[in-house]
């Protein structure tokens, strides 16, 4: 027997009890990643060589190395320098920073895809650099990258189990804990899988809607 319905219903409430941890961590980290990612994308485009060089290196390094080790440093090593944060907060920041480096690359691609004529038209109307970005370029840069940003929202959902490394128990860890008590893993892990699927499918429907809304009248 590989599936036991009664058992599945028994453990459902325990799984749902930590659902909010998964959701908070995901959304929190995504917001951090979106904002910081934009800052990094700008810093890399900066004409200040030092700023763009340092940003380049930092982005590449954070992007290329495992986030759980970064979380370890944030959680266990930073306190030695007097910076102590709660576990969930550390998790949100850590994952947020990690994925901001990815989003900065995504933004770069989006910005590059805006037609050069749009920059020129904005210059001709004498917008300031800031206005160009906010009103002309970014709105057009975001549209083609929305699906990819959706990818990262979904990725973050699924990366939250990593937070166990810094003592945050979210759904998948909870499933494993439940499993370890009864030695039936298939049900809890599969249920978490389905829950993730529902969340990420919901996210992807949302992304589709935004995509459609932004696409309307454009082409």
């Amino acid at each position, binding site marked *: 027997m590989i599936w036991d319905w009664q058992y599945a219903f028994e453990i459902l409430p325990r799984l749902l009890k930590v659902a909010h941890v998964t959701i908070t961590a995901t959304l929190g980290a995504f917001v951090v990643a979106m904002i910081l990612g934009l800052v990094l994308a700008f810093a890399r485009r900066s004409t200040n060589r030092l700023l763009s060089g340092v940003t380049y290196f930092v982005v590449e390094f954070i992007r290329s190395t495992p986030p759980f080790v970064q979380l370890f440093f944030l959680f266990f090593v930073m306190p030695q320098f007097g910076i102590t944060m709660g576990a969930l907060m550390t998790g949100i920041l850590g994952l947020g920073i990690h994925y901001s480096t990815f989003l900065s690359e995504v933004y770069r691609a989006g910005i590059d895809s805006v037609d050069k*004529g749009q920059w020129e038209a904005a210059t001709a109307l004498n*917008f300031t650099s800031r206005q160009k970005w906010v009103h002309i370029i970014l709105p057009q840069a975001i*549209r083609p990258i929305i699906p990819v940003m959706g990818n990262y929202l979904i990725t973050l959902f699924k990366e939250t189990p990593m937070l166990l490394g810094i003592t945050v128990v979210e759904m998948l860890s909870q499933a494993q804990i439940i499993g370890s008590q009864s030695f039936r893993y298939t049900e809890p892990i599969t249920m978490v899988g389905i829950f993730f699927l529902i969340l990420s499918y919901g996210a992807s429907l949302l992304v589709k809607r935004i995509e459609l809304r932004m696409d309307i009248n454009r082409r």
Partner: protein
Amino acid sequence: MSNIQSTERPHTEAPIEGKDPIVRFKNISKSFGDLQVLNGVDFDLYPGERVAIIGPSGSGKTTMARLLMTLEEPTDGFIEVDGRQLWHKEVNGNFKKADEKHLHEVRGDIGMVFQHFHLFPHMTVLKNLMEAPIKVKGMSKAKAREEALAMLEKVGMAGFADQYPARLSGGQQQRVAIARALVMHPKVMLFDEPTSALDPETVGEVLEVIKEIAKDREMAMLLITHEMSFARDIADRIAFFDEGKIQEEGPPSQLLNEPKTERLGEFLHRFGIDGKGHNV
């Protein structure tokens, strides 16, 4: 037609009394890599004056406008706008390369309509016209809307205020582009083939708008065009551009009827204008 110009308004050969040029190109050169596109352009434009630039394809007309619009940097030479250096900044008597802040200031006097329009695809037609007045000039929303609608009315596009640009025909897009530049009321307007996508009827209407606004505001205009009749109609002066330089300039009547250089003669002949400025 207008091959007989009134003498009331003198031209470059006879400078406009007491007025300084609003735009002055001094020995401007521009290369793209190995390709030298502009090769020592000297050119003055006076307030309120309308100059048409004609010349073969690829001769550098667009490039000249782009330098003035600060979209491209000159390789050599100076451009002055209303007495101020455009690409340079005077610091203690020395010329330094202008920074973005300086460009932003001087550029405020100039507007441009692009050959490919470059409307903002994510905004409705109305928003396309309102964005810059509000954001750049700090105009109130209500006022900007009012002016934008009035301008759309003038170019015959009032019915399309809430459309997105992708839905418009070529000529409709071009009219919106013209309106978008005009609502900024620059002192100098650059038109890069502003009527190429318009039918003659609409050309006539748009022309009226441009002329009217020019009269009201003493707006100077630089018109790059391939339509001689348009040039003749609207321009106070025509400049013939070839091989990276202005080869010849003068009032339409003179330039089109009695070209001085052989090159211009040839150019006009191909167009089918005889010595009398008539189509043959």
